[in-house]
């Protein structure tokens, strides 16, 4: 097992009460691992207590990246949130903690 951080990088963006997190493989050969193991369901479970809405995943094979769009995540919206990190900019770092099974690589 390795942390997602070892094979991918990530950035968070915000719009209203929705957060999006990109997960991009450092090397293209790891993209199938991301696709297989970094699922919407896992991301939603990982952000338990943070994401109150749904998690939708978009695939971008040309850049070996995934984009996760998470609704009802930013404390009612960036401009009115009580949170210290109202934009959720720090969320990408939490996602890079995910454990990835790299058996066979």
């Amino acid at each position: 097992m390795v942390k997602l951080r070892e094979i991918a990088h990530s950035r968070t963006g915000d719009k209203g009460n929705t957060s999006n997190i990109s997960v991009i493989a450092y090397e293209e050969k790891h993209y199938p691992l991301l696709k297989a193991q970094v699922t919407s369901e896992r991301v939603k479970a990982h952000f338990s207590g943070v994401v109150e809405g749904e998690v939708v995943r978009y695939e971008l094979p040309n850049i070996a990246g995934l984009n996760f769009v998470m609704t009802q995540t930013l404390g009612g919206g960036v401009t009115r949130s009580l949170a210290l990190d109202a934009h959720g900019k720090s969320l990408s770092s939490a996602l890079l903690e995910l454990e990835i099974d790299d058996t066979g690589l």
Partner: protein
Amino acid sequence: MRSIRIGSGAGYSGDRIEPAVELAEKGDIDYLVFECLGERTVALAQQARMKNPDAGYDPLLEDRMRAVLPVCASKGIKIVTNMGAANPLAAARRTAEIAKSLGLPSLRIAAVIGDDVLDACKDGDLPIMEFDGTIRQLGNRLLSANAYLGAGPMADALHAGADIVITGRASDPALFLAPMIHAFGWAMDDWNLLGQGTVAGHLLECAGQITGGYFADPGYKDIPDLARLGFPIGEVGADGSLVITKVAGSGGAVTAQTCKEQLLYEVHDPAKYLQPDVVADFSQVRVEEIAPDRVRVSGGRGTRRTDTLKVSVGYVDSYIGEGQISYAGPGALARGRLALDIVRERLKLTGVQSSELRFDLIGVDSLHGAEVSARANEPYEIRVRVAGRTESLREAVRIGNEVETLYTNGPAAGGGVTKSARDVVAVASVLLPRDLAKPSVRFVEA
């Protein structure tokens, strides 16, 4: 083939100023774009304008213009910016005064007006997208309604000879698309070119975020010289070809990784990135390093624009009161938790009226909540934070006060209290039929 070089001189209203000067002096650029308008900035600026009719534009307009105008004028670099905020005309007039005071009276300065669609939104009593309700139901809490304009009016201003174009609310990528439309004569229904141009604008609009800012992670993603981070340049060809680069010798790095991260920044469905001028499709984009700090980005496409414009509606949402206090050393976490328990009970006992409360331990769980943070070790020091939403400033003040009284009434060795109370100007969105926004261009003489 013709090509232009567009520099991105600011990624938000408070951004560093000298990277823009560096771009103008050493970047061999044709256009310098400043994106300075956050989601709620127009609403805040509208409040300022209501107090003073000559105010309501970006507070750093003067500093930025004074810094770049002499070199831009001497090299013929044209400036496009949304620093007009809630008052583009006043911003243009002020810029004209600055130009004159710098001995540059021949600069032609244009304001794009018409993004203010408050009346049209009220007339239509448009429904709000984020919650149940309509514009009129916001009553006297409603502050502003500004449509995200497209590139057309800015391109018109450039076509009419403007050296400086100052707009209010416009889509951020459109600030970059306007010079491309002007320089290359792109048709406003050439969806694929507009889509690829939007890719360029989207990549450039956050300035340092594509040259290594918001990116560095020591040991994994190392970026040199962030204190002198260079801002990006887009080399765009008439066919939409695009290379992202930066000034040689500046700090930071432009790599495939920085470009890929920025490509998806604040994007939802990458195949449908809704813009006023086009529905851009980023899903087939390719990113390729062709030389150090030179990345080719291709494959952006587009489809027909929608019939509506997104409108950002500013309103007074509520008030937020907050207080913080620190604990350290052995038992810091237990004392922090005790402090939170005390404040939680005090807010009830004293009847502070709030609709939402938040109890954080900074250093433990303030960023990702208790569940995500559960596996972390106990830190040496922690900071207690209590925040609450209220209907009045008076109630908001009471929240910080209940944290402050922990000094003499709370756990041992609590220090460094800070407290605040503020009103919350929030934004929501409505969709306005496109033909109800009537943007126009006005020139101001220096």
